[in-house]
């Protein structure tokens, strides 16, 4: 009979803390990524938002094979979606589902940057997608949610 102690599973609150940190980071990052799209010259307005997003859409279209209607639709909805997903992550609203949708949004954004060969931006987004994938692995330890996922 061995005298060494039996391995014990990590305590639940360590996983909970790890996920919470990820959720907070991703929530803040996503929320602020959406908010900054309304900024121009230090001012935040809807007018700035549409100017910024139209510039983004026409810039991507001008440098890639993607049609303007596609990039415009994506760009004009991007900021709102980032804010919604960011807030949902912070509040804990259907976190599993929100993580998947946020991940898909970042993959979509990566696709646009891949199309214009913006490797640096793609690499940054890949880090985001990797963090979301890690969060999905830990999502079962999610706590402090206003609207929890069904277990």
């Amino acid at each position, binding site marked *: 009979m061995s005298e060494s102690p039996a391995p014990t599973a990590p305590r639940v609150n360590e996983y909970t803390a790890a996920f919470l940190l990820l959720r907070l980071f991703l929530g803040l990052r996503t929320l602020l990524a959406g908010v900054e799209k309304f900024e121009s010259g230090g001012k935040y307005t809807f007018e700035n938002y549409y100017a910024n997003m139209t510039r*983004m*859409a026409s*810039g991507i279209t001008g440098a890639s094979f993607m049609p303007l209607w596609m990039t415009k639709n994506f760009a004009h909805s991007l900021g709102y979606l980032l804010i919604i997903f960011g807030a949902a992550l912070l509040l804990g609203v259907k976190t599993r589902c929100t993580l998947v949708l946020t991940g898909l949004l970042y993959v979509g954004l990566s696709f646009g940057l891949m199309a214009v060969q913006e490797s640096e931006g793609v690499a940054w987004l890949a880090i985001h997608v990797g963090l979301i994938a890690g969060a999905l692995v830990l999502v079962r330890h999610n706590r402090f949610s206003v609207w929890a996922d069904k277990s």
Partner: protein
Amino acid sequence: MPDSPSPYPAFTRRDFLATGAKLGAMLVAAPAFVRAATGSQTLNVGLIGCGEQGRVLLNAALKIPDIRFKAVCDIWGYNRTYAERLLGKFGHEAKPFEDYREMLAAVPDLDAVIVATPDFVHAEHTNAALKAGKHVYCEKLMAHTVEAARSMVVTARETGKLLQIGHQRRSNPRYQHARDRLVKEAHLLGRINNASGQWNRAVTEDLGYPAKYALTEDKLNQYGYANMHEFRNWRWFKRYAGGPISDLGAHQIDIFNWMLGANPSSVLAGGGVDYYKNHEWYDNAYVIYEYPTPTGIVRCTYQVLTTTSAGGGYHEYFMGDEGALKISENPKYTKLYREARAPEWDQWVDKGLIGRPGSGEGAPAPVKPWEKPKPKLGGPSKSATVDVRETAELSAWDIPVTLDKAIHQPHLENFFDAIRKDTPLNCTGDQAFASAVTVLKVNEAIAARTMLTFKPTDFVV
């Protein structure tokens, strides 16, 4: 039987000679008459000196319409053949000559001559061409001595022919815009108090030559050269030229005079042959000039260093109390700076005289078309970085005028336009004489190790 009257008018020997002379004169003048009658603007040009600078001028002139090179002259067959072949490729049938006197005699219908020989023969070649009735474009520095330069101005006056000296910055549209619009019209620099100029150039090897094409000692001596090494590297030897201050500095010191509209009253200089063992001329020189101008003294420094490319290349820098202009033939060294105390410059942007900070040449990489411009950050706090004696930072603006031609082309165009249309030259012999006096005094000041003064009459022929 009385002589019947002849049906033909009497034709004496005297009549024959007079008519023959008139016909001969008409034949000689025929090309000019034909050109005048047909409205042709083509100018016949000869080149004396087909070395490095001659080739630069040839290549620039070949881009100008209605120029026909009819003769090239160089004492070295190697250079002569190069120029002849280059011109042949562009359809110019230029006759080669070793001696400029033969060229001037054998090709009488030349309208103009370009002189790109070593400085010590500029006056000889220019004066001969002017006396032969040709307009002359002569490379700078116009001569290696003040007296030689003076003789060129006098000959131009006596013959009534045009003399343009190759200070080509005066015809550069960016320089003209800077002086005429930014400094004179908009007064963007305020009162100019100081200027600096420099040409820092890395070590260069002496020029060699293919041994089989070397000139004989007799031939070299006939044309005033001691040996083949000095013939190829004449810029470094005192009997042929004025050294780096003349080769490089002349361009920029000429711009001091031109921009300030004045000649200096004194010069203080130091320099020496400190690096090169087989050269005679100073390989580095530091100069201080004082220019009396209507708004006060402008003190200018100039340096020419031939052993380093460090220190910011080559440019002229005019500094006033409201702004500063850094200008060079190389656009990357060109910038306009506004002092924080100066009146706003936005009106000059709207008028197209200047570009906003960060636009144009030398600006940081533009924001990608799909990116949102990033908000400006505050940066480190002022108290942590700025000494109390520092004054507010300059803002950098752009000059929206660039030259899209070879740098010598506008100056040659100005010369040819002056011949064809009687438009004013951008660098007459008189103007270049003042610059030559300004430049050549530097070598005297270095040798004398003391401040030398100029009299206003020194700059006048």
